Each structure stands twice: as structure tokens, then as C-alpha cells.
């Protein structure tokens, strides 16, 4: 079974497939547009996890979401990591492959986190080279996701959305618009998220993420451990009005709830997306 047999339609919602839900997903086969997994959890040669992914791809389009490639590391791109990703992409033939606009490693130390970059011309040139390289190795388009961040660089001279729009224009990559991340940053850094949407070219957006966050003192922290909050739903509706419906993921990684909670969030996203596009096209 390949991506060609499981094309991802323009609309519809998927969920992150996490180990505690494997059995229930395979038995119930809920109606979902796709399943997304973290690429790095499947860099294994074989065994139970790889078998589960094989079962998942037989039933659903798969989205591979990378958290460890560290596209923005100034000193090097980890070729060995990219080689593992390529092996997985060749094996799974996913509908989508995505990475983050971030760095995570320097000088041989990996923080296994999504760390922010200054949005400068220098960074843009580096990222464009890296995305070109990754797309040529993988022989496919990737999506690059906007980040949630807790600090900003003084020398950033463009917004993250303007940076991503230009990265997509230069490299042909797509964008993964994480609406929760955009909202988290809007609160943390004090900007209008709707104005940022206006900087994006909707045709470049290949996927949307929705997730919950936590409030820690004066900061929103992207935890993927709770329900999508109302302001993020509102921003999602605005995204759908502006750009039309996009494949959308309910992303939940910590304090994983019952599968039905994810499915009900997915149902809500579907309803919002179809309502918003009806309004937009009325």
C-alpha cells in the first residue's frame, strides 16, 4: 500500500497515533483523514512499533512529523539522522513529511527540543540551503512548521510568518501552520495572530496543527497535553475562512487521554472547517 493508494484529500482531520491507542485504533478503525507519528519513534529496524506503523499505513494515509532533524543548526545538518529519515520515508511512503523551523543541536550536543531561531536573512539563507538539501535527499516536498517559543532574538528583522512565506517561495517547501503555536507566540510576545496569517500564502499551507498548551506564570507553554482552547479554535476558524480547509491534526503527546477525546476534537475541527469554508464561499 502506498501514498498513491491513500492520497490525502484537501480536507479532513487526523490525530497523532500514540502507542496507548494502537490497539483501539486498529480495532475500531475510526473515520480519520490521516494518522501522524513522530518520525524518530520509527527509526527502528523492526519489532512491534514498526509492525504497528505497517498496520496503520495499510488503513490510513500517514504523516511523518520530525522532531529531531534540527534544520537550523548553524554548524551542521546531521546526515546520519537524514539517512534514517530517508529510510523511513522510503519504507512508509507517507502522504506528508514535516519538520520544524528550529534548531536543536550545536557542537555535538543535542537538546532534543525545538529551539528558536533569529529570523534574519542569514538564517533564511541557511534554512533555504538545508530545506533544498533535505528535499533533494528525500526526493519529495517537505512541510516546515512554525514554532512555539518562549524567547525572541533581538536581531530578528522579519516575522516568523514572513520568514516561512519566503522560505516556501525559495525552496518550494510547504508549510505546516500550527495554529496553537501561533497563538502561544502571540500571547508570549504580544502580537496580533490574525495579522500574521495575512503574511502567508495559503497555497503553501499543506497541513494545520491544533493542540493544547499550558499557562506557566506569564508564559504559554506548548505542552500538547490538553484540549484545544477557545481562542485557538477561533483562530483556526479564521485560518479556514482565509485559506480554505486544510488537512488538520489534533496533536496530543503528554497526559494522553482516551481515544474518544481525540476523536471528539477531530469532529469539532471538521465541523468548524466546513462551516468556515461555507461562510467564506457563500
Amino acid at each position: 500500500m502506498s501514498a498513491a493508494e491513500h492520497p490525502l484529500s484537501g480536507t479532513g482531520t487526523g490525530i497523532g497515533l500514540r502507542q496507548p491507542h494502537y490497539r483501539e485504533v486498529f480495532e475500531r478503525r475510526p473515520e480519520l483523514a490521516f494518522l501522524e507519528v513522530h518520525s524518530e519513534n520509527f527509526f527502528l529496524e523492526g519489532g512491534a512499533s514498526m509492525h504497528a506503523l505497517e498496520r496503520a499505513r495499510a488503513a490510513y494515509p500517514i504523516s511523518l512529523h520530525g522532531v529531531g532533524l534540527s534544520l537550523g543548526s548553524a554548524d551542521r545538518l546531521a546526515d546520519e539522522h537524514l539517512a534514517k529519515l530517508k529510510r523511513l520515508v522510503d519504507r512508509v511512503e507517507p502522504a506528508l513529511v514535516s519538520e520544524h523551523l528550529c534548531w536543536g543541536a550545536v557542537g555535538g550536543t543535542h537538546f532534543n527540543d525545538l529551539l528558536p531561531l533569529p529570523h534574519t536573512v542569514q538564517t533564511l539563507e541557511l534554512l533555504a540551503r538545508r530545506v533544498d538539501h533535505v528535499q533533494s535527499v528525500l526526493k519529495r516536498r517537505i512541510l516546515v512548521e512554525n514554532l512555539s517559543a518562549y524567547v525572541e532574538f533581538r536581531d530578528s528583522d522579519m516575522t516568523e510568518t514572513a520568514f516561512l512565506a519566503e522560505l516556501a517561495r525559495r525552496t518550494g517547501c510547504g508549510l505546516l501552520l500550527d495554529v496553537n503555536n501561533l497563538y502561544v507566540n502571540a500571547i508570549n510576545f504580544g502580537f496580533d495572530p490574525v495579522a500574521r496569517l495575512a503574511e502567508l500564502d495559503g497555497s503553501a499551507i499543506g497541513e494545520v496543527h491544533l493542540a493544547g498548551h499550558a499557562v506557566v506564570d506569564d508564559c504559554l507553554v506548548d505542552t500538547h497535553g490538553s484540549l484545544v482552547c477557545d481562542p485557538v479554535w477561533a483562530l483556526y476558524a479564521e485560518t479556514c475562512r482565509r485559506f480554505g480547509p486544510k488537512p488538520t491534526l489534533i496533536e496530543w503527546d503528554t497526559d494522553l487521554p482516551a481515544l474518544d477525546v481525540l476523536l471528539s476534537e477531530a469532529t469539532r475541527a471538521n465541523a468548524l472547517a466546513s462551516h468556515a469554508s461555507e461562510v467564506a464561499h457563500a
Partner: protein
Amino acid sequence: MPELLAQQADFAGALRDRERTPAVERWLAGDAALVDRRLAIYRGNMVAAADKALSSAYPVIRQVVGMEFFHGLAREFQRGTPSTSGDLTEFGASFHAFLEAFEHVQAMPWLGDLARLEWAVHRAYGAADAPDWDAAALGTVAPDDQAAIRFQWAPGTALVTSRFPIVRVWTIHQPGYAGEFSVSWECTETALVARRGFVVDVAECAAGDAVFLEASLAGAPLGDAAAAALERHPDFDLAALLGRAVAARLVCGLNP
């Protein structure tokens, strides 16, 4: 140094050592107090990533020492041995050496060997699936050639030798274990780690079998491995061991 590299080196320094925060403040917006509060979130993520990865690889040690103490172990281990890969399943390969040297766990001198066992289990879990192999091939080897057979063992198969009862400790901490919990500390055990289908088995391995398997896993021909086992353990029963290994599909080929 290009500016982006300097920024990332300073950022990394501040995450690993709070004393080095001033170096990154010059790059970041906001006052020192804000930067310090926000970097604390990233420092928390860093330790959480180590804890999560080690918890996944070392679930028995986590149960034995408790989750709070384990979190402290993860923090200390990461301080000395930070991750070097974006693939966290590789993180923690040297946890056994850390435990053997860490002064606050010297009362549990068997933790290091237990860590070796859990790492072997962790590796076996994601090892390649064993190829199908027809054991009848063994019967077609001419008698004169049998001593030269080199077995191909199923990926993930490993031995862990200890002067402590690590198999017993591992077994009583498995989910669903319903037996009694006594441990006789005065015994040595060799653990045989092997994938059966998608399940990783840990079993105690008899002393003669362990000598044979250690040699054979390292690539020794059957004759040499068997001679080594018989020399040290005259009761070693090659036919019985091979019968069990073939039945369990641990042998999955013959190497030239």
C-alpha cells in the same frame, strides 16, 4: 564565528549551565529576569526529554528507585553525558557505567548490570525482524563440516552476565508478574535476551550454555564454541541447547 553559530553556542551554554545565562542575554529580547524565567522552560524540557528517554529504556530501574529519584538520575546522567542524537532511542547507552560510578546508588551495586540487561532488551525491541529460516538446512551439513558452522542468531539476541540475580530482579518487576517477590542475592546469573516475534524474552541461561552462546554470538564456529563450553562445564548439553534455540527461532541462518 558566524553570528548564528555564536548565538546557538551561547544558548546551549546557558541551557546546560545557568551561570552562563548572561552570555545569551545579549542576543535575546527582554530583561535578564524575563530571559532567565523563559530559559528555565527550555531547561525543564531538556531534563524531561532525558527522563522520558531513559524511562522508556530503563523501566525496571525506574520502578526500583522510584520515579522522583529516577528523574534526579536522569538529570545527573544528562549533565555528564548529554544526548548527541536527534533520535532519543539512542540516548542512555552508557547509563550502566554512570550507575556504577554514581556515589548515591552504591548501596545497589547490581544496578549497573540491571541497566546492561535493560539496554539489551531496549535494543532487542527495535531490532530487525528475524528472517524466516528452515532449520532443515542444519541436517544437510556434512558431518565433517559441522564443527565449522557459524550460526546466524536472530537480531537482538544478547547475553548479559552478572554476579547478581538480574534476571530475577527484572522478572519480578514485569507488568502482570503475579508470583512472590523474594530475591536470593547470593547468586550469579547470565541473562539471555531474545526476541520472540515482537516480544522480548529474558531468561536465565545455564553456565555452559552461556559460554557457548557468548562465543557463537561473537561469530565463533560451532566446534570451538562447544569445546569452550565443555572445557569449563562438562555437563554442557549442545544438542539440548540447539534444540531449544532452533525451536524458539533464535537461530535464523548459517553463515559461511
